[in-house]
């Protein structure tokens, strides 16, 4: 009997030696004359356990991890092929606390299936969304997406259905679907996990989008830092063409949709949609003025839907299970789920897909297990390099777009980066300006010049010169960036900078507001009547 073993091919798993482990398992099985079928799946998102090897048993998939090549012989000796006990054994994968209470809608198949097997995709409810979409009028598909409450998961949280409706309403000889896969935010990897772990769900989502708005051509603009995702996407796209899920006559229904992957070239700004379109056109990735909106004049001047990977990958389940099903997850105006990504100084880093509404504290401690260093978590940056730093006093804020904006923070693409108490927040504020300077497209002055001025002023503050006065300058400069920049790069750099100053003033050599009064009150309590 052949025993099936899963060893992830996700690039994070590969970064911990998954290829070497897979090879070693195959060699060792051959040496023992045991027949095994090693499937290279995506990651379950429990990265501290990678490489996570799973063995299919009668009871279900049993997890072992983190496995190194030198553990393989002892795993065989412990009869891991039958779920045998071993120091690295975690029991049934589906019963693990980390996975059990998640609400995996978009990530339903990631880590479970063979990402490049179309048969496996179909066997796990794949392409049911497209089949339903083919039975609907295009306007009804747009309506379904609108009613689901899905908002752009790239960070801007714009209602996806409304964007689609704008493109749907345009009359044009050519329309485009562009997938923004330029996932540049530090602390985020959910797009990568989808593309490496379940590429067909993205292809399906884009195909549905094309049929809905009348677009016949799609591009995935993929960051150049993801070579593994590129290979997997191209393999999946080729299979989809071969089986008529892409091409001139999709499933014999007369719809046409062509899809190709385009490589980005390492510019963070190209994650901004108009800059991305410029880059796709083969130009410098400089931000465009809006209006016109890309939905009306986008790629090559044609109506274009630009959506993030996770947004598009969520469309199939909405079409399959209905808008009502999806809308029932979440809170307030944040409907559905968000794949949160735990990163930085965290003991158990990985992907947690949950309905909006859980708190940062639950994520950091129930899932993350606290910091990796064992020291207290001092600050958490949510939403990438342009997201605010949150202090411990804000950890109970529910993860919801509106609740975060009330505390002048953003959820962004769902990245959560933890820092322990050794972090110097002045350094992080300086870095935010530095990053903006490195990545600025140069089109608008506040971002191009302001970022460099910001680095210079931060250097003075960190050198201890005139801190109070220079903080006033930084605040003034931030105001210019916030209100005068063309796009979110300059416009949001003040989020990490000002949140760091406001929540951690001590790191900037200044007093916390009200600190002087508190010290005075303390002094007055001291008995000096000797």
């Amino acid at each position, binding site marked *: 009997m052949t025993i099936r073993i899963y060893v992830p091919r996700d690039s994070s798993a590969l970064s911990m030696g998954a290829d070497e482990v897979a090879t070693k398992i195959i060699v060792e099985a051959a040496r023992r004359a045991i027949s095994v079928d090693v499937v290279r799946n995506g990651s379950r998102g429990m990265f501290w356990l990678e490489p996570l090897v799973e063995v299919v048993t009668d009871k279900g998939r049993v997890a072992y991890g983190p496995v190194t090549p030198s553990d393989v012989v002892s795993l065989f000796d412990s009869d891991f092929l039958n779920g045998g006990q071993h120091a690295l054994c975690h029991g049934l994968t589906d019963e693990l606390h980390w996975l059990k209470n998640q609400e995996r809608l978009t990530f339903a198949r990631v880590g479970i299936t063979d990402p490049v097997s179309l048969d496996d995709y179909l066997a796990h409810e794949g392409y049911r969304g497209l089949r339903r979409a083919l039975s609907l009028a295009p306007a009804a598909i747009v309506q379904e997406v609108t009613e689901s409450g899905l908002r752009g998961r790239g960070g801007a949280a714009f209602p996806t259905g409304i964007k689609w409706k704008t493109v749907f309403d345009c009359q044009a000889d050519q329309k485009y679907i562009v997938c923004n896969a330029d996932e540049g935010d*530090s602390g985020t990897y959910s797009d990568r996990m989808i593309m490496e772990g379940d590429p067909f769900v993205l292809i399906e989502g884009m195909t549905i989008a094309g049929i809905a708005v009348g677009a016949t051509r799609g591009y995935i603009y993929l960051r150049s830092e993801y070579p593994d995702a590129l290979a997997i996407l191209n393999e999946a796209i080729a299979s989809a063409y071969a089986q008529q899920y892409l091409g001139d006559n999709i499933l014999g229904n007369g719809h046409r949709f062509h899809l190709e992957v385009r490589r*980005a*070239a390492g510019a963070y700004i190209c994650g901004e949609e108009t800059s991305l379109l410029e880059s796709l056109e083969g130009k410098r990735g400089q931000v465009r003025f809006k209006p016109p909106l890309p939905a009306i004049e986008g790629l090559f001047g044609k109506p274009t839907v630009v959506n993030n990977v996770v947004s598009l990958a969520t469309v199939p389940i909405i079409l399959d299970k209905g808008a009502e099903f999806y809308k029932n997850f979440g809170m307030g105006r944040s409907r559905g789920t968000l794949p949160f990504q735990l990163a930085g100084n965290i003991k158990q880093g990985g992907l947690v897909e949950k309905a909006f509404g859980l708190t940062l504290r639950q994520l950091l401690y129930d899932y993350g297990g606290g910091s990796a260093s064992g020291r207290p978590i001092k600050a958490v940056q949510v939403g990438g390099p342009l997201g605010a730093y949150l202090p411990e006093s804000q950890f109970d804020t529910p993860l919801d777009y509106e609740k975060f904006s009330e505390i002048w923070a953003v959820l962004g693409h769902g990245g959560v980066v933890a820092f322990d108490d050794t972090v110097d927040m002045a350094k992080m504020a300086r870095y935010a300006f530095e990053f903006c300077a490195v990545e600025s497209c140069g089109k608008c002055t506040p971002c191009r010049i302001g970022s460099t001025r910001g680095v210079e002023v931060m250097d003075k503050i960190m050198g201890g010169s005139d801190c109070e006065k220079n903080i006033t300058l930084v605040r003034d400069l931030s105001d210019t960036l916030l209100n005068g920049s063309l796009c979110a790069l300059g416009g949001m750099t003040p989020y990490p900078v000002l949140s760091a100053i406001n929540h951690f003033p001590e790191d900037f050599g200044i007093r916390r507001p009200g600190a002087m009064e508190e010290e005075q009150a303390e002094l007055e309590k001291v008995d000096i009547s000797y």
Partner: protein
Amino acid sequence: MHIAAYKAVPGGLLPLLHAIQDDIGYIPEDSYPSIGKAWNLSVAEVHGVVSFYHHFRTQPPGKHILHICRAESCQAMGSEYLEIHAKSKLGIDYHETSLSGNITLEPIYCLGNCALSPAVMLDEKVYGRVSRTRLDELIAVAEAAE
């Protein structure tokens, strides 16, 4: 040769530049006039596109390229010490190539391996939870490999 393959592709300039760099490791500046002619751009405009993107280089790199992630998640796990270590070990700064001609050092802003920070990338392979010892091993391998 590459120019002919991408001339008819919509927005084909970036795919062309990728093809050239994949092929010979960099984009020679003396290729700008022929690229410009094919795309109806001035040499300055071609230079403008090439120089906009961090990924493209106009000088031949070393035999291997070592990228160290500088983004926040890796900083939270001490990537700064890896940067200092790599620079002093190789005796070079970012965007430079070691004396042996084997290793070019580059900064990178996120490899999407943030749950396993700090991360580095040697050529196209990413490594997670990299310690200074691990970095030394990678550098040694790259120095030894042809």
